């Protein structure tokens, strides 16, 4: 197995400069991501999932432990570990096309090489005809697709995605998930994906890393036992529901205090929102 990303005992402590508070974001994380795997990091708010992603991206450094990419220590960001942000981060002063071409152009690749590829990608994500529009003229979903195209245009080795679909409405979110699955199927890149949503995680990934509450530790790593090609029909399968329920329980434990939920005062068991309803964003 070709190990793309290896984390050994990675910890991260944030020190707020203003108040001097120490926040333990991550504690002793061990993780291995193989080449071509789609791994999702899933967990409640504040569990450090974004922090872990940023560490892998090289936008931040761990306080402890080591982080390896292709066997070498991660030292700062690189285009091979490309990132998709929750806030899209499309540059507002450039057209969509210019945004998509930004990466290869900054790396001084010849236009003949990147231009057709950029165009192809724009069509692939469904933005044909909007290439020369500016980000503020597009909807959230379209902006995110633009960001996706920008990421792919660079042909990075590893894709890091930080809750990219969180700011998108429910219907578009589902569609984008399917598009992501399709794109991944075509290119088979290594992906590290962060999300709140159980359904999203199950739908997209090979493995799900379930994180505990802060300080973020790995609670459990779940292998998603679904056929690898995911389409909308996958959502209707029994297996999918089962997986969602199981993973959902894991998350619940973290939100509600570990172990059995307390029902001492006779409060009724909180109703499990049915995971079979499409578009239901996961428990937060």
């Amino acid at each position, binding site marked *: 197995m070709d190990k793309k990303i290896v984390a050994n005992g990675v910890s991260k*402590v944030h*020190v707020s400069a*203003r108040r001097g508070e120490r926040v333990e974001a991550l504690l002793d994380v061990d993780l291995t991501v193989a080449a071509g795997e789609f791994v999702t990091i899933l967990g409640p708010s504040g569990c450090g999932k974004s922090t872990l992603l940023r560490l892998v991206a090289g936008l931040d450094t*761990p*306080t402890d432990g080591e982080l390896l990419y292709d066997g070498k220590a991660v030292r700062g960001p690189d285009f091979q570990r490309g990132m998709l942000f929750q806030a899209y981060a499309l540059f507002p002063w450039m057209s969509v096309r210019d945004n998509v071409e930004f990466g290869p152009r900054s790396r001084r690749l010849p236009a003949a090489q990147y231009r057709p590829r950029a165009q192809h990608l724009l069509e692939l994500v469904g933005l044909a005809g909007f290439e020369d529009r500016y980000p503020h003229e597009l909807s959230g979903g379209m902006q995110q697709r633009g960001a996706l195209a920008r990421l792919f245009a660079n042909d990075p080795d590893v894709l890091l995605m930080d809750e990219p679909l969180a700011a998108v409405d429910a219907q578009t979110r589902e569609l984008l998930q399917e598009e992501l699955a399709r794109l991944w199927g075509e290119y088979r890149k290594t992906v590290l994906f962060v999300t709140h949503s159980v359904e999203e995680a199950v739908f997209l990934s090979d493995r799900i890393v379930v994180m505990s509450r802060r300080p973020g530790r790995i609670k459990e790593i779940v292998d998603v036992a679904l056929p690898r090609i995911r389409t909308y029909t996958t959502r209707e399968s029994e297996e999918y529901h089962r997986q969602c329920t199981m993973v959902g329980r894991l998350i619940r434990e973290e939100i509600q205090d570990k172990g059995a939920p307390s029902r001492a005062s006779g409060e009724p068991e909180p109703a499990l929102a049915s995971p079979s309803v499409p578009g239901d964003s996961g428990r937060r």
Partner: protein
Amino acid sequence: MAEIRDAALLLPSDLQAGPPEAPQASPGRQPGRRRTPLLEGRFRHVIVVLSAGLLWHLLATLIGDESRLPSPLSVGSELAPMVSSGELTDNALASLRRMMIGYLAAAIVAVPLGTAMALSRVVRAVVEPPLEALRPVPPLALLPILLVLVGVGDMLATVIVMKAAFFPILLNAYLGASEVDRVYLEAAKTLGVPRSQIVRRVIIPAAMPQIFTGFRLGAQFAWMSIVAAELIGAHSGLGYLIVWYKQFLLMDRVVVVMIVIGIIGFVFDRLVVRASRRVVSWQAS
């Protein structure tokens, strides 16, 4: 009146509600950055000021001519006699007095007026045109007219200060009052707060932060204008003092006055900020 937002941009960066500080100060963040402890300690500001002083001294010695660039030493040595003779304090107080009168007068009129404009379309319609006509007039441009009308003296300077401080306060009061989140108003109404009290108990407090921004800007403009006004049309005050010393080419004394002006302006600004923190302590920032 979108200019208000931009007017607020004249303030030093620490006031602006900028993006919350990201916790980036974790150790090991930027491998390879040079550490310059001298410039990072708590005394760094002092060091910077001292270095600036040193640079000044070097420049002054190079130029040599005291009337072109007085050296910090001669400036420093003038401080004592100026203070002990009372002229520094007397004139500073004169300037401050005028500024405060003009500033308070402006505030007393501008805050209610701005609020009223935000709340009542009628008031706004009546008052806005003349105000909009008056606003772009630089305060000092009024000086000639005022010279003719009221002659040199206290009144002149005070009126100019009023004009300078009036508009920032007015605009910010208007902005603050008009942008009070609907939600607060609705909450108050459904809690049964009578209409007569809504203004006093909901709108004004909610608008306070913005009003204080106006106070701060107004104070800045007021202080700058008072000095400028005195430079031209007064017989006392710090501005006048500058002109007086310039006549005799006592530039080192001029510098003393300038530094005093700067310090007073700075201190006053800090006072307003301090006051605003006290009054608006509930603001999450």
